[in-house]
């Protein structure tokens, strides 16, 4: 894999990590059955979750995971961009800022001081922002984590020089395609499926769990109308805010539907710690 033979004509692939959990890049290793064949078609040149051996750039395609949260990130993403013919972001963090973008909506530093004994050692930005806020992005793959089939599809489309077949419509259409009965209509379950981008195969509704929006807003998401309906069906404002404030909290369509009272309610004096509040859900 770390061979640097000049006769190798395979396009090179690099994987980069910013503020993230590594789950999305591990989706590449999750392509177990296809992985060997894939490495025959692309040369994995930089992927530290897989190998310490790396090949220097420039790279034909870079997969970028994570959001920009530190001054160092701001510089590093520019280098990645400069070294990449194609830059594809993978996952909710890279596309919208991730769960760590919750800090964008509170007093700067308040989360860090609640979590770390010595926050003064941290050097972070006040906000967590998507990759596209810093450099040009050629393609965004959504999800928390991404779907490995979609990752393969993007790589195969790249290799064939065609457009990836990746939908921008709602999760509802995946429920209908697999004949999952609508939980919102038949059970009044709070479900973000109607405003969430497809791609997971409607995994949660298929096990009777409402969609929690991990693929972020769909192309045409009308979140205000859905939350008005969920409120009628019994969801409280707080429940709706929590539903929208997860992995894609900073995606504009989700962010704009969050109640205006939310920021005040998340003052650290009132609830012991927002991070603990999150863990209880």
């Amino acid at each position: 894999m770390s061979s640097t033979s000049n006769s190798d004509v395979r396009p090179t692939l690099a994987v980069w990590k910013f503020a993230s959990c590594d789950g999305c890049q591990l989706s590449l290793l999750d392509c177990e059955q296809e992985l060997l064949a894939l490495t025959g078609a692309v040369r994995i040149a930089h992927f530290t979750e897989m190998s310490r051996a790396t090949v220097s750039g420039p790279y034909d395609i870079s997969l970028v995971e994570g959001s920009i949260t530190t001054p160092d990130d701001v510089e590093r993403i520019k280098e990645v961009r400069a070294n990449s013919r194609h830059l594809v972001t993978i996952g909710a963090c890279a596309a919208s800022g991730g769960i760590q973008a919750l800090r964008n909506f509170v007093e700067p530093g308040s989360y860090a001081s609640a979590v770390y004994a010595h926050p003064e050692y941290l050097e972070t930005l006040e906000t967590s922002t998507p990759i596209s806020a810093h450099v040009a992005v050629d393609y965004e793959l959504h999800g928390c984590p991404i779907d490995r089939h979609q990752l393969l599809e993007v790589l195969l489309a790249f290799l064939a020089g065609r457009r990836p077949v990746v939908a921008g419509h709602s999760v509802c259409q995946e429920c209908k395609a697999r004949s999952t009965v609508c939980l919102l209509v038949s059970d009044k379950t709070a479900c973000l499926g109607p405003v969430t981008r497809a791609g997971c195969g409607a995994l949660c509704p298929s096990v009777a769990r409402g969609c929690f929006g991990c693929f972020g807003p769909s192309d045409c998401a009308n979140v205000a109308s859905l939350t008005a309906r969920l409120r009628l069906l019994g969801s409280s404002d707080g429940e709706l805010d929590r539903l929208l404030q997860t992995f894609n909290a900073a995606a504009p369509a989700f962010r704009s539907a969050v109640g205006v009272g939310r920021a005040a309610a998340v003052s650290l004096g009132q609830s012991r710690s927002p991070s603990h509040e999150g863990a209880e859900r």
Partner: protein
Amino acid sequence: MSRPAQTPDGPGVKAADPVVLGLDGLDALITKLSESGYEVKGPVSRGGAVVPGSISGVDDLPAGVHDEQSPGGYRLAQGDDGRLFAWAVGPGSWKGEFFPAHQEVWRARASDEAIEFTEAAREAAPLAIVGARPCEFRALEVLDRVLKDGAYRDPRYADRREAAFVAVVECASPASTCFCTSMGTGPGIEGGFDLALTEIDDEGGHRFVVRVGSEDGSEMLDSVPSTKADAGDLEARARVLEGAAANMGRHLQTEGLAGLLARNMDHPRWSDVGERCLSCGNCTLVCPTCFCSDVHDTTDISGESSRARVWSSCFDLDHSYLHGGAVRASCSSRYRQWMTHKLSTWWDQFDTSGCVGCGRCVTWCPVGIDITEEAAFIAASDGATRVSPPSTRGGS
């Protein structure tokens, strides 16, 4: 298959005369269909709804299952009666059996000399449906005009449709969201079917009045235990249909409707509904006549490529994508496209309504948008126009 019924010369009950089946008779009919090589499907209660599923006998049918439907609401309840068809249509229509959500059309492999195409496999056994509602049967006929009998025949759809056997069960229990009487598609049915059943459960017992609509229907009924329907049975059937018509939950004023919508393309109601509509596409996917599809060409790692036809929806941004962007970028323009196509331009294209009044789009809209209410609103304010010039771009 619906070849017209012919009266056999032999003794016994004439095929064209209505007969009565008991539960054992219905069970025998399902067995006969299966033994004749059909893949038999019917309504089953699964995942909290009545949906199409495989059946091998009456025990698989939703006995005692009742439903409660409202705009954006659906709930099943288990009764202690043994009626098998005491519900209105659920989210899954029979469309999916002939026009599946995802259907591979061909695969191709390139070699040095040529590209070799292989047609994708088709379903081996013809389909027999026991328990399609009249509105659903009429919906298949609407689809036939588009996919089978029109200028662009879809061979996969057409072949499966032509081979299919359909035993309709007339409707005794419409939902609050139903309006088939407005569309002339129910609750009873005359013609087109192979068999038409009416479930009766009165002092005369739990039974089915069966009418024959085709030679195949006659043949399938041949060895099934039945008795000749008497006047009382036929009166009971009439009472069932009268009761159903009287309980129809909704009404759509169809007279002049196509023209009404065509001249109200700038009505302010489109903006209003655009505020409520989620653009999720549920209405189009539960609709038994929506036929929009996309073609997906993909490649795999081994160098093989594949073409699939997949369901699409006019509520998707991609659906109206032309060079430079989506033609219908606003939610109001997408809803207007869908509703005016169903009730107005479908007539121009296919000389029928695109709506059969099954009410699925009303029930399964997560925010309960009601096509009959939208039409009534526009009818009541015919000629109203938006304050600002209409736009198909941006916003909602």
